[in-house]
């Protein structure tokens, strides 16, 4: 956290090295979160790139969001929701139904590369309703507490806990053999 604060200070002073450090520190985490949430590598790449572009444009506002990691996660959630709404509006394949399109061996011009396990989890996560998927991802992958997730989802904490419980049950059923062994 302290290191992040130092990064923010440097970032707010126009320090490109700080921008690179932030980028290297968080890009993989954000890509993984995005893949779990969208189930689509290209949309994940777009969403994460947009988040960093947003950071580059609004570097002076990061301090208002408590900490850098939460700022980036909140930006990512918002961006993915926007992409989902756009997808529905243009009647494109909705993100919920999108299959994982990343091959085990990705082309060299593709930014993100996911291993087999990642692809499999992403496909399973795509089976969950959006709200449950968000809660499970934010809890498991981002390590956020329920109050923080409730703030992001703009929902009561009880509702968020219910979504988590239902999400886990469904995941358990879908991953039955691996979880039980």
């Amino acid at each position, binding site marked *: 956290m302290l290191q992040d604060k130092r990064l923010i*200070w440097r970032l707010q002073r126009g320090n490109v090295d700080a921008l690179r450090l932030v980028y290297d520190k968080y*890009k*993989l985490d954000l890509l993984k979160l995005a893949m779990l949430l969208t189930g689509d590598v290209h949309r994940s790449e777009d969403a994460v790139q947009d988040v960093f572009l947003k950071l580059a*444009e609004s570097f*002076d506002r990061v*301090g208002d969001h408590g900490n850098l990691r939460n700022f980036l996660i909140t930006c990512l959630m918002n961006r993915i929701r926007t992409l989902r709404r756009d997808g529905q509006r243009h009647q494109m394949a909705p993100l919920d139904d999108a299959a994982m399109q990343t091959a085990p061996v990705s082309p*060299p011009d593709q930014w993100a*590369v996911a291993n087999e396990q990642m692809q499999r989890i992403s496909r399973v996560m795509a089976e969950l309703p959006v709200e449950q998927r968000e809660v499970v991802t934010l809890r498991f992958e981002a390590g956020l507490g329920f109050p923080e997730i409730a703030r992001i989802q703009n929902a009561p904490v009880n509702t968020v806990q219910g979504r988590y419980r239902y999400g886990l049950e469904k995941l358990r059923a879908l991953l039955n053999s691996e979880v039980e062994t």
Partner: protein
Amino acid sequence: MSSADKMRRLFDEGVVQTNAAPDDAVFEKIKTTYMRAVQHKSAQQEPGMWRSIMKSPLAKLAVAVAVLIACAIGLFLWRTTGSGIALADVLARVEQVRAFQCKGIIKRTSESPAGKPHVWEVHSINLESKECGSKATHKEIDPNGARTSFAETYFVPTKKILIYINHIEKRYIRTELDDWVVPLMQKEFLGRYSNPGTFLKEIVACKYESTGRSTVDGIDVEGFRTTDPNCARDGGSGFTDPQIDVKVWIDAKTRLPVRYESLTSGLDEKGADASHQFVVYDFQWDVAVDVAEFESPAIPDGYTVQVEKPWGAIDEQTATESLRKCAELFGKYLESPGFGPSVDLEGELNKSNNPAAIRLKEELKGLAGLERANRLADAALPMRRLLLFYMNLTNEKKDPAYYGKTITPKDADKVLLRWKLSDMEYRVIFGDLHAETVSPEKLAELEKTLPK
């Protein structure tokens, strides 16, 4: 291991990596956006790093200590390096100026009784000379179509005279001043609205901040700003919960004021939005002054000349006498505490059918010209004394209040005028003009019973 832990392990086994070439390309795009944003925001203002730092209590303390140390050991260096402007230095420079000219605008916005926006605006040109005195030309501009005015005021301390020339009513009023009035006039009556030394002192006494470098009227300046309520012109009087915004811009080269703006806004006594704006600009420093102009301001042809005698002692006794005179003439007290030379006593008299007013009106019928004007001036003298008494109380911050708008001579137990003697005592003049000294608690009780 629980199923939740097993599931977490499965999540952990999912790994994402990036290819180097597209990774660099993505970062280059982000970097370009960042550099552009940094450039744009630096042009607008300093980055918000300071705000982030100051969120930490520890950092606040550290910065406070650093500032104190810097103030203690580095003020002299700071003043002389040219890296910033100290308002105290500006004030010292202003006080060295022998004569200057400036323009001023006073603008009041409020609602008329009919609920329509009402604007009152006065433009002035002021000439201040340490040797000769003050001269101000006022033009009242009324966009609402009501009466406008055009007048000049000369204040000559060496001769102890105040001359007021009303060009609309063609009146020339010469007032001879008591010795004790002269410094008061210098400090409060004229200096308050035209002397940059006065408003600089007000800002320096408040919490203020630099607003940085800019250009005003083609001059490179450094700006300063305060929103401290103590810096309000007239203390934001007449406003409920006044909001203050005071700015001054200082010439980076000469270190003298270029422009001053004061805006007080809030709710007036009727609960309507109101504001009071005061602007001083177009300063010309160390201008040449024609001494002859102040020796004897010419009386324009066809103007009525009026001479007012010295006001005499101004104290509780003369103030009470002044209130008694008001009650005799008008059968009530004036809505505001007394009036200045621009208010038409004759107009007030015409509204009254009290015996004293009828006698004075009869007397005036037999007079003409200068005799008539001087008789009117004599009759108005008590009201001038009352105004001066009240202004003294205000200037001395004695917390005065006047309730002539609602209290009549019949209200024997109601507060008409009060002021503070000490933290433990207030002096009160009641509606029947008897006076008492009361505690603040007693005063609060008395004021609770006042009509709204």
